[in-house]
């Protein structure tokens, strides 16, 4: 018996010391203020890195960041091609993310065709999405001639005019010059814009009715939405782009478009005469050159301080490109990225081994930088779609931490009080075990570098319930034994040995559930399972060893405070 006791005491002390050693870095990091952290970053960056690496990791839902699941579209590939495509996509996305400059990105495959990207602490969500999700298939293609383009627009006007559902008197309207109707459209559209901002119902009413007229009258006039700003391209007010896309999608309009060309929109909105516009191009389907030919791409500014990307071509491609561009000097060449036109500059000279992609007036230098990143990393071997996207802002994460901490502390205080009031001194023993459990749980999580998530915090809070349950089982049993008239010593012994069975049984069943959650769950669910399983094991130890040892010392008492 004596021997048992000293063994237990040694075990507890060892656990406490080891736990303290492992928990120390986490405690130190968590207790550091932001200023101290910044200071340490300056003086001892390696030390801070090591410190951060040996602590409990915060999940994306707590520290803020982005979690994206991408599905590689391998629908028309053989299994071998598919897995190859997935691996290459993974590599390319890793390259892009590395160049994007985020600390500790996680990029991993899941299943056969999923890729998970985790970017902790990321702020600029839209940018990251575009960078990761874009296929980055770069193509150089010629534009259809202005005459043919205009003819096609006229044809579209005509076929929409013969729409049986539209008003009959549209023929005359179609005759009005494009410029006039454009002005009308622009006026009406600016009214429409105002009305969305205005709350004045009268104005809204007037605009509504004009809008109705406008839509009826112009359903047949595709061209009235367009302005031929340059010879090569049309521009449309950005607000109208969805409507125009719908028009272009109508079957009979589609049937008009020759097989060797297609309509394509510009990549981004531009400022034009005080309104936001988007360009529309008619582009030949023949691809003159692809992005594979690029050996380097550098973002820079042109002489008008507009962002652009300078690129270099490989030798083979260069001579081929020279043959293509040589006879076509003066013609516009569209630079198409993922089905959208970055720009369509005129060929000034024979292009041999380098060139420039200008991004238009709507672009920022960041756009140019991102474009050069994706061009250098190369195109993805297949289309990649974002199927799951989780973004947590840093403030929300901070909010979750403070709420979780508050809830844990309040819950803990309540339980500690309940136990102390109901079980007196024995309740305090249970409270000690409770604090011991939480401490050891955090230490083990630091040791495993486990990730703490919001559900994980819930798991910690549940641990409070679990460890108290064990104590309650034991104490109730001891009380029962005491009421049958047994001595303190006999009651404690009987209480522990009988309650132990129930405690082990109930904890193992919960452990089974936690194990299944761990095996099948992902992300936050896994975090919960980890916290819960460690918690259960720690709680078992403290119920059967820690409190037991304390009770061993109380065996000699005449009366037990319980």
């Amino acid at each position, binding site marked *: 018996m004596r021997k048992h006791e000293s063994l237990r005491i040694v075990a507890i002390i060892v656990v406490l010391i080891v736990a303290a050693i492992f928990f120390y870095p986490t405690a130190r990091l968590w207790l550091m203020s932001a200023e101290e952290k910044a200071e340490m970053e300056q003086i001892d960056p390696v030390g801070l890195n090591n410190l951060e690496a040996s602590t409990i990791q915060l999940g994306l839902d707590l520290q803020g960041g982005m979690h994206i*699941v991408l*599905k590689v579209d391998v629908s028309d590939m053989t299994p071998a091609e598919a897995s190859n495509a997935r691996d290459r996509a993974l590599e390319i996305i890793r390259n892009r993310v590395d160049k994007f400059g985020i600390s500790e990105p996680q990029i991993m495959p899941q299943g056969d065709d999923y890729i998970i990207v985790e970017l902790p602490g990321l702020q600029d*969500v*839209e940018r990251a*999405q575009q960078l990761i999700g874009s296929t980055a298939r770069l193509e150089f293609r010629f534009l259809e001639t202005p005459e043919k383009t205009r003819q096609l627009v006229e044809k579209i006007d005509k076929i929409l005019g013969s729409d049986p559902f539209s008003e009959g008197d549209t023929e005359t309207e179609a005759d009005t010059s494009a410029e006039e109707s454009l002005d009308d459209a622009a006026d009406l559209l600016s009214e429409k814009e105002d009305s*969305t*901002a205005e709350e004045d119902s009268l104005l809204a009413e007037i605009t509504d009715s004009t809008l109705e007229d406008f839509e009826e009258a112009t359903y047949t006039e595709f061209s009235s939405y367009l302005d031929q700003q340059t010879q090569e391209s049309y521009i449309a007010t950005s607000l109208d782009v969805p409507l125009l896309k719908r028009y272009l999608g109508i079957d009979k309009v589609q049937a008009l478009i020759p097989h060797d060309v297609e309509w394509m929109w510009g990549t981004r909105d531009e400022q034009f005469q005080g309104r936001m516009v988007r360009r529309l191009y008619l582009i030949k389907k023949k691809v003159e050159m692809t992005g594979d030919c690029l050996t380097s791409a550098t973002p820079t500014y042109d002489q008008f301080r507009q962002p652009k990307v300078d690129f270099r071509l490989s030798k083979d491609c260069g001579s081929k490109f020279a043959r293509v561009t040589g006879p076509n000097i003066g013609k516009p060449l569209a630079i198409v990225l993922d089905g959208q036109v970055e720009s369509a500059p005129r060929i000034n000279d024979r292009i041999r081994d380098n060139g420039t992609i200008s991004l238009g007036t709507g672009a920022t230098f960041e756009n140019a930088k991102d474009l050069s990143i994706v061009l250098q990393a190369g195109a993805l071997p297949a289309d990649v*779609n*974002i*199927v*799951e*996207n*989780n*973004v*947590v*802002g840093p*403030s*929300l994460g901070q*909010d*979750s931490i403070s*709420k*979780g901490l508050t*809830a844990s502390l309040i*819950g803990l205080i*309540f*339980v500690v009080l*309940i*136990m102390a009031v109901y079980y007196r001194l024995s309740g305090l023993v249970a409270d000690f075990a409770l604090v011991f459990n939480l401490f050891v749980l955090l230490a083990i999580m630091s040791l495993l570098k486990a990730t703490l998530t*919001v*559900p994980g*915090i*819930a798991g910690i*809070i*549940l641990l*409070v*319930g679990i460890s*108290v*349950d064990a104590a*309650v*089982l034991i104490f*109730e049993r001891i*009380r029962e034994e*005491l*009421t049958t008239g047994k001595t303190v010593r006999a009651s404690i012994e009987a209480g522990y040995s009988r309650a132990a069975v*129930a405690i082990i*049984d*109930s904890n193992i*069943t*919960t452990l*089974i*559930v*936690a*194990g*299944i*959650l761990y095996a*099948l*769950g992902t992300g*936050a*669910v896994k975090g*919960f399972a980890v916290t819960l399983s460690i918690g259960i094991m720690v709680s078992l130890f403290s119920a059967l060893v820690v409190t037991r040892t304390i009770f061993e010392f109380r065996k000699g008492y005449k009366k037990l405070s319980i």
Partner: protein
Amino acid sequence: MFRIIKGTKIDFISQRKKAYILSAVLVLLGIACFFAILFGKANLGIDFAGGTMVQGWFESDVDIADLRSVLSEAGFDAAYMTHLEGREHGSTFLIRVKVGSEGGQTVSEQIVGAIKAGFPGNVFTLDSVHEVGPSIGRELERTAIWMVLLAIAGILIYIWIRFDLRFGVAATIATFHDVLAVLGIFFIFNKEISLLVVVALLTLAGYSLSDSVVVFDRIRENLKTFRRKGDFISTINLSINEVLGRTLMTSLTTLTVVIVLLLAGGEILRDFALALMIGILVGTYSSVFVASPIIVEWENRSPKRFK
């Protein structure tokens, strides 16, 4: 000794018929919810059904009706919006639509774009985005079903080994009962069943099982001691009464932490805590009125078992 429960002699088993009615109602609701899930009529969270959830903050106050009209103009008629408290000024909203992106411009981008265009003077800061495509949602649904099935199988086998089949079946039924009851209650109040709620249900399965196991443990012990005295039903009643103190004390403490979590744990954990809270109440009830009566019914039909 300060005890709330002191030497009670309540005849729980004689009340079992009344309990059966209540349990039948709860379980039927749960089964209804289960079928609703099968036929795609249940209020599944976007984790399973696919969809988009955007939380963001306007620097100046925004009326929810204005936000609704801006979003419906952008084509999100079925958007579900909640105004969240907690910031000193401005308005924080949680917007949920049952459309998930699958390629192209993501739905969250469209929503944020519409909001920025609709409230030009107001600074809008994105707190969080959660976006799930329909295909991955279905996959998760399958995973969740597997988790539930495996958990039940694992529990049944463990109890079977530790006790015997009879106890194993009774404990599993009680566990099923609790999970279905919570599901049913979520169903009638049209609460969303999210991934976290499923996790809560599984945690609850573990908890409810512990409760049954503790009672069974005592029944087994008492059956050994009282094999020759007293009849079966009074042994069961005695066992339930003996562990009643523990049952209530554990429920009280666990409920305390869960209620604190419900009130102070923030939006993300609210439904999780709610499911656990209902589950603890139901679980406490079922360990007394469902698990043990099943043993009694079984014994009534094929006695000799414990003689």
